[in-house]
């Protein structure tokens, strides 16, 4: 029987030779990821069900990366991080990226691969819907709730349904103005916010091969915005090089059979793609940037797991170099490594930090999720009124960045930066 990459990874994790779509199977996890918003509840479920003195199934495989509510005076948020600290001590967990210490990283989905925890062929469960990001490295990765995560914490296993696969063939030469964000917004625009519900979204083709690992992460990150269970890209040399530069741990690459049966196939020629936005209030509300030049903006936001990586800031800096922003522009690096990269990466001898400062952006915030999900009232960049925002984040739901009255346009870092210069939605080609 031929199988897709997703089926093969799940079969291996279930100790079987093969699995079929819609089959319910118990799979072993390689990693359980949690953070400050869902970690405390997960821990309580674990203790309630397995006992106050129970030990997690593997102290090297539960990875805790606080990132959501870090730089806030909110007492409950601080209490939640403290409860993680207590648990890590009790359990002797090996991987904990504690805020306020040199171990702190920032946004979990950028930190996880950066720290070498994502390896091809493995199974990753995380208490965050964007856990699907990690399929970009050829792993099966999906988001789960606290109760399921409590179960994994105690047993290392979870009962899941094997997803059907939707295959997206992205062919053609990738123009330099088209980013991972433009590709995924186009796809979600076509299939809708539930177009991949319960399915694996497999991305392949020569355009995917042209993309960096970070850009592939942007694509897989937003599989959930089409309802996908996981996004996945077969590992190639770029993937293997990336993973080897992050970890010494061995891994075995799993690839799918090229003739494996999939539920549906979609073919795209990316050379025809245009820079785009997703209009309020759904990621599926696709429009080309050029067709929305009449939309005036109050704010640009560059950050999050999907748009706050170093490659995202390099793209924005290329546009902003030697120019001025006309609206409030917020920059939030996803992780400490990205934050450092802003100082060391240079364009024409000038650091990104200096480029952004000279362009008139606000001072760069410390790494965290920040206003990507609104958060407590004192969150950096949180909307509070009717601000019209262009953002490199992944969700534009009503109220997502704080205020219910603040509409959000999702875009690539190129489009967000060009729009910041003009104070209205702008096609970045004008500045390239």
């Amino acid at each position: 029987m031929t199988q897709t990459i997703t089926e093969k990874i799940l079969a291996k994790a279930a100790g079987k030779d093969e699995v079929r779509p819609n089959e319910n199977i118990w799979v072993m996890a390689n990693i359980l990821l949690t953070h400050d918003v869902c970690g405390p509840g997960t821990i309580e479920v674990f203790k309630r069900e397995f006992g106050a003195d129970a030990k997690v199934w593997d102290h090297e495989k539960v990875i805790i990366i606080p990132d959501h509510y870090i730089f806030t005076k909110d007492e409950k948020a601080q209490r939640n991080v403290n409860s993680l600290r207590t648990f890590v001590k009790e359990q002797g967990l090996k991987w904990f990226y504690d805020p306020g210490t040199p171990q702190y990283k920032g946004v979990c989905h950028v930190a996880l691969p950066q720290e070498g925890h994502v390896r091809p062929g493995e199974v990753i469960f995380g208490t965050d819907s964007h856990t699907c990001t990690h399929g970009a490295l050829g792993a099966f990765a999906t988001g789960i709730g606290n109760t399921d995560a409590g179960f994994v914490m105690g047993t290392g296993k979870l009962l899941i349904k094997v997803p059907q696969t939707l295959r997206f063939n992205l062919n053609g030469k990738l123009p330099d103005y088209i980013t991972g964000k433009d590709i995924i917004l186009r796809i979600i625009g076509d299939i809708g916010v539930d177009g991949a519900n319960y399915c694996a979204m497999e991305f392949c083709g020569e355009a995917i091969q042209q993309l960096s690992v970070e850009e592939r992460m942007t694509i897989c990150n937003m599989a959930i915005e089409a309802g996908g269970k996981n996004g996945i890209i077969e590992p190639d040399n770029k993937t293997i090089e990336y993973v080897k530069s992050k970890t010494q741990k061995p891994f075995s690459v799993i690839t799918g059979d090229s003739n494996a049966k999939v539920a549906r196939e979609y073919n795209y020629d990316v050379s025809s793609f245009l820079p785009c936005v997703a209009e309020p209030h759904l990621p599926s509300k696709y429009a080309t940037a050029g067709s929305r030049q009449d939309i005036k903006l109050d704010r640009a936001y560059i950050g999050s797991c999907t748009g706050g990586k170093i490659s995202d800031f390099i793209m924005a800096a290329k546009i902003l170099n030697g120019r001025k922003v006309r609206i409030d522009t917020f920059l939030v690096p996803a992780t400490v490594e990205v934050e450092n990269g802003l100082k060391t990466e240079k364009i024409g001898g000038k650091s990104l930090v200096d480029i952004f400062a000279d362009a008139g952006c606000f001072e760069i915030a410390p790494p965290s999720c920040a206003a990507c999900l609104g958060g407590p009232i004192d969150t950096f960049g949180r909307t509070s009124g009717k601000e019209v925002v262009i953002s490199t984040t992944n969700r534009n739901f009503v109220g997502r960045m704080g205020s219910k009255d603040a509409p959000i346009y999702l875009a690539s870092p190129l489009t967000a930066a060009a729009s910041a210069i003009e104070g209205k939605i702008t096609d970045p080609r004008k500045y390239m």
Partner: protein
Amino acid sequence: MDDSKGIITGTVYVLDNNIDTDLIIPACYLNLVPTIPEEYRKLGSYALSGLPSSYPRFIKEGQSVSEYSIIVAGKNFGCGSSREHAVTALAAAGIKAVIAESYARIFFRNAVATGELYPMESEQVLVDSFKMGMQAEINVSAGTVTNLSENSVFKLKPLGAVGPVVEAGGIFGYARSTGMIRKK
């Protein structure tokens, strides 16, 4: 599940397509931990507070639970985040069942795994057949919902493979009943 006979009767709150988790429980309340009883109740009091003001209030001013106990919704209910707080908040506010045309995967899964509420799927579009505040009765085993205010009956899809998990009260009950993990 608190109703062993699988009969759920109550007042209906009607919602559109694509009700996302930020509408169900806005992110500013995610500092609350669902397993702490006091915070569980608080989450309930904020349920659906992200909805635009075009909807009638889900929870009356000064109350902490809702007068509604059944939600009838369109497609892709619960899309967005994996926050189990969404299921918890609805349950804590008094919702016993949601009937939607379809669900976003993680919300459905969380409803099943926690056993906090019945995630039922309708065979047809129901959002036009129920008006806000009407009375309904769900019969889970028969797979029907009756509009008591208009005396009409609609079919629900069977729970299928997750049925036994729901019946066992969630993933832990199910895993214990099948010997996957030790009995408590």
